[in-house]
């Protein structure tokens, strides 16, 4: 056995770069977060067209997930993997291209979102061309990590690295799977899937972005930094194995719990719910391993802000991974879905778990990477307490807001009327809670500013020569084919092979697996693939999952353009297009939404939050002029409305040039537009827009809207939900059936689909 030591120089510069970027982007993400918390309910603060809630909310989520958390993942992975494997990173060049590429990507993405180039799918909004950049940079990350593993000096892969591998593999699969599109320009595209299928793919992606971007990499980081900071051994290696594999296998199935009671087939929903329940303990395995590792270190928690952040971070991980499965139960979800409860849940994870873990790691690692003590430990402790109070205010306000609104939505009077038929009533009730949330978020941001100052001063105090890479001595990788001690036969004989097998198995089968990186990675990919395929394949091959409806036709060219405006303005951030099969929803909005109604929706726009009312049955509900006034100045039609104004829709011309490219893209996706449809698209747009403009003028509205974006948007909104015929549910008795006079000719007897606002709950004032 050779024990010759080799010198290893770690690449600490790249870690410093990524950790520095983490701090900067954390501040940006939180500033945008607090900003949109205000824009949400103080509409006058919105600066249309570019700085509205609908465009800035994706900026916040993308900045928080991909800029802040993304940089931390790369920083922590690159910093820890060198030390865990006792080798320098595989390639300095790849590391640098990765770093600068990622920062440029973020800046480009921010511009794209503010200028309205979005794919219209949550957390996957970035334009297709940037998706390609993401994929490229992710491959670089993978090459660097696997390259480093290949040149390692440690045979054994520590648990943190298992989680890094799972992250790399799963995020690649998810990102590619959900980003298949047909472009119609350099920045814009339509997704390959539509309606129900798009929804399934999106939430397979969306939920597992949480799993494999916000959970597994952070668990990996926890397994390195927490025992380091606490100077304690990890509680249980067996638990690491169990919760790693169960998490990787089970998580991927849970996506459909975002789509309970929608047009998604019920079997998929059921799978999503059950696997979410099973996911509870695999998730808690990570919490248990984290918290129990601190056994014997609780004294230090009192003193060390780093450990305080770890304790609350890991506890919040436990809290939100209990809340998640609970919210995934169908009957609970029936209440929580579309409300602020979801927002509260997400932030328990992102603020409580991701941010607290990030702060813990930063306060621990920055002094080490810059070779100087933390500028102020007490300031870090103040940060901890301010952030904790802010977090609790955030969460409690969202719980209260969510449950309050859900209860108001479903309240009925004894005579069968909705107690709150005006949606706006359920909105203004929440405003005090939105103030509390703003306060909580501001406190959290204040803490972030303290961190910024503290870390800045720490870095500023770095001694000369801190840039030098850390050097350590490590033995070379031991030979894979260990020989039998005192053997007399050649190493390649059966004796030796048998000995090696015995040795390997004596440490457990998983110990063997940890040494075989290719097998390990393939198994991770398989674990992720099983749930994905079981849910996706039947959806794509079995037509009974999406029953077609003959009367559902593709959108007209003008409606296509209007729909693109709807996407561009980010309407889906506040409005759903999915009436669930509940009595209070069919009473409020109309007939519940059917799978077959969405077959031409590339992308689907079901939404996940109703800050405003559902829009799937809005078609025909209001006169055109109502929409014009509503877009121009929402409170003019809906007193108390918190919707931002979109006055530019009345002054900007809708785009005509790219309609052919758009329709051709749809044709590629199988939308049945004929040659004549494409050739006559411009003429058709003009005719439809002029008809709308004439009707608006007849209603005494503005007279010059035929070429304006609002005409296209109205065309789309008036089309929504009108492809099927439906009638409001009949009541046994109502004023309408016992009202006195027979003499008035009532237009309301028409049974046609034009029978708008049929539920009666409909209220012009509810159009918020």
């Amino acid at each position, binding site marked *: 056995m050779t024990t010759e030591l080799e010198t290893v120089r770690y690449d600490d510069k790249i870690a410093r770069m990524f950790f520095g970027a983490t701090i900067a982007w954390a501040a940006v993400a939180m500033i945008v977060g607090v900003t949109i918390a205000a824009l949400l309910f103080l509409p006058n603060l919105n600066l249309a067209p570019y700085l509205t809630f609908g465009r800035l909310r994706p900026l916040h989520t993308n900045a928080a997930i991909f800029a802040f958390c993304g940089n931390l993942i790369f920083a922590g992975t690159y910093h*820890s993997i060198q030390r*865990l494997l*006792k080798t320098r990173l595989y390639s300095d060049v790849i590391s640098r291209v990765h770093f600068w590429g990622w920062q440029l990507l973020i800046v480009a993405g921010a511009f794209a979102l503010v200028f309205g180039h979005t794919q219209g799918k949550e957390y996957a909004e970035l334009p297709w061309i940037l998706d390609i950049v993401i994929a490229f940079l992710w491959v670089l990350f993978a090459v660097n990590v696997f390259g480093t593993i290949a040149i390692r000096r440690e045979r*054994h892969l520590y*648990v*943190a690295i298992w989680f890094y591998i799972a992250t790399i593999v799963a995020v690649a699969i998810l990102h590619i799977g959900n980003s298949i599109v047909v472009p119609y320009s350099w920045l814009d595209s339509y997704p390959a899937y539509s309606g129900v299928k798009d929804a399934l793919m999106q939430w397979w992606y969306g939920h597992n972005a949480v799993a494999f971007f916000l959970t597994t990499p952070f668990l990996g980081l926890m397994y390195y930094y927490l025992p380091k900071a606490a100077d304690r*051994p*990890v*509680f*249980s*290696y*067996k*638990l690491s194995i*169990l919760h790693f594999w169960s998490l990787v296998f089970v998580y991927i199935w849970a996506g459909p719990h975002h789509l309970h009671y929608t047009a998604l087939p019920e079997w998929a929903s*059921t799978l999503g719910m*059950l*696997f979410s*329940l*099973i996911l509870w303990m695999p998730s808690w395995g990570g919490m*248990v391993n984290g918290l129990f590792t601190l056994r*014997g270190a609780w004294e230090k928690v009192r003193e060390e802000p780093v450990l305080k952040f770890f304790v609350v971070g890991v506890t919040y991980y436990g809290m939100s991974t209990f809340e998640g499965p609970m919210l995934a139960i169908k009957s609970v979800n029936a209440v929580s879905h579309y409300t602020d409860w979801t927002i509260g849940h997400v932030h328990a994870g992102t603020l409580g778990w991701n941010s607290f873990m990030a702060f813990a790691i930063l306060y621990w690692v920055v002094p080490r990477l810059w070779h100087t003590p933390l500028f102020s430990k007490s300031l870090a402790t103040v940060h901890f307490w301010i952030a904790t109070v802010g977090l609790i205010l955030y969460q409690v306000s969202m719980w209260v807001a969510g449950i309050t609104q859900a209860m108001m939505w479903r309240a009925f009077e004894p*005579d*069968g*009327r909705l107690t709150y*038929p*005006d949606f706006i009533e359920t909105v203004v009730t929440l405003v005090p809670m939105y103030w509390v949330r703003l306060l909580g978020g501001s406190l959290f941001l204040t803490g972030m500013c303290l961190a910024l100052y503290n870390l800045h001063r720490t870095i500023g105090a770095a001694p000369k020569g801190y840039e030098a890479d850390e050097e350590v001595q490590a033995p070379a990788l031991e030979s894979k084919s260990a020989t039998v001690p005192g053997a007399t036969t050649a190493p390649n004989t059966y004796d030796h092979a048998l000995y090696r097998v015995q040795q390997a198995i004596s440490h457990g089968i998983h110990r063997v697996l940890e040494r075989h990186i290719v097998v390990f990675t393939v198994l991770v990919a398989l674990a992720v693939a099983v749930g994905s395929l079981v849910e996706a394949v039947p959806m794509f091959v079995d037509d009974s999952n999406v029953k077609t409806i003959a009367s559902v036709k593709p959108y007209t060219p003008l409606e296509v353009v209007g729909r693109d405006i709807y996407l561009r303005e980010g309407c889906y951030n506040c409005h759903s297009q999915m009436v669930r099969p*509940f*009595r209070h929803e069919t009473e409020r909005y109309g007939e*519940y939404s059917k799978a077959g109604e969405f077959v031409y929706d590339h992308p689907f726009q079901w939404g996940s939050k109703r800050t405003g009312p559902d829009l799937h049955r809005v078609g025909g509900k209001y*006169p055109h002029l*109502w929409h014009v*006034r509503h877009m121009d100045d929402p409170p*003019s039609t*809906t*007193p108390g409305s918190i919707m931002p104004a979109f006055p530019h829709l009345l002054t900007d011309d809708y785009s005509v040039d790219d309609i052919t490219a758009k329709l051709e893209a749809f044709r590629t996706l199988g939308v049945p537009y004929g040659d004549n449809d494409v050739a006559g698209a411009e003429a058709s747009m003009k005719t439809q827009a002029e008809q709308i403009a004439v009707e608006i003028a007849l209603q*005494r509205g503005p007279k010059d809207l035929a070429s304006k974006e609002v005409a296209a948007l109205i065309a789309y909104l008036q089309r929504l939900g009108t492809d099927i015929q439906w009638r*409001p549910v009949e*009541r*046994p*008795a*109502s*004023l*309408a059936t*016992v009202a*006195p*006079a027979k*003499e*008035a*000719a*009532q*237009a*309301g007897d*028409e049974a046609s689909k*034009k*029978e*708008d*606002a049929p539920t009666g709950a*409909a*209220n*012009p004032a509810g159009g918020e």
Partner: protein
Amino acid sequence: MDENENKLLEHAADGIQEYDNPLPGWLLAILYASIVFSVVYVGFYALAFAPDSYDAELRQEEIADRAVLQAYFNANPLVPPSTENLLAEAVDVDVLSKGAGRFAKTCASCHGEAAQGLIGPNLVDNQWLHGGKVTQIFNTVVKGVPAKGMPPWGRAIPPEEIAAVVSYIRSLQGSHPDNPKPGEGEVVEPEPMPQGR
């Protein structure tokens, strides 16, 4: 906690050691329970529910709801207001303020804040599209004119409030708001108020 109770693995990763502690029993128990529950649930679901059960559940609920409502209306029959009621209330200050409040909240967005007509028709002149008698106006509000974008408010607003709005509208007859919308429909002379006016 005494370290000797926990067996350490012989290997360390960058100085991080790992105990070989057994899995917590409660964690395993809940994990197994959640798996057993899922199997049972799927069995129950497969046997007890038909496909399309969202739809079936909703329709069942609607039927049950109708029965409850029927019973309610049997006990509390709906009595539409009479012409006399509506006119009498058109001079009742309390009723009028209630009607004005509802008008501002619900009607003004289409008919204008002073009922001068906007998206919807002028309500202060003497021309009416769907009948100008107070009971006819009441009916129009209840049933709406969906084809023209007016919802059937009878499903959403309590009868007393609709009556109050109608009385309020009657009280506005002949007023002269700014920027009135030109009249539409047939001319109907307003029914006389109890005390003139």
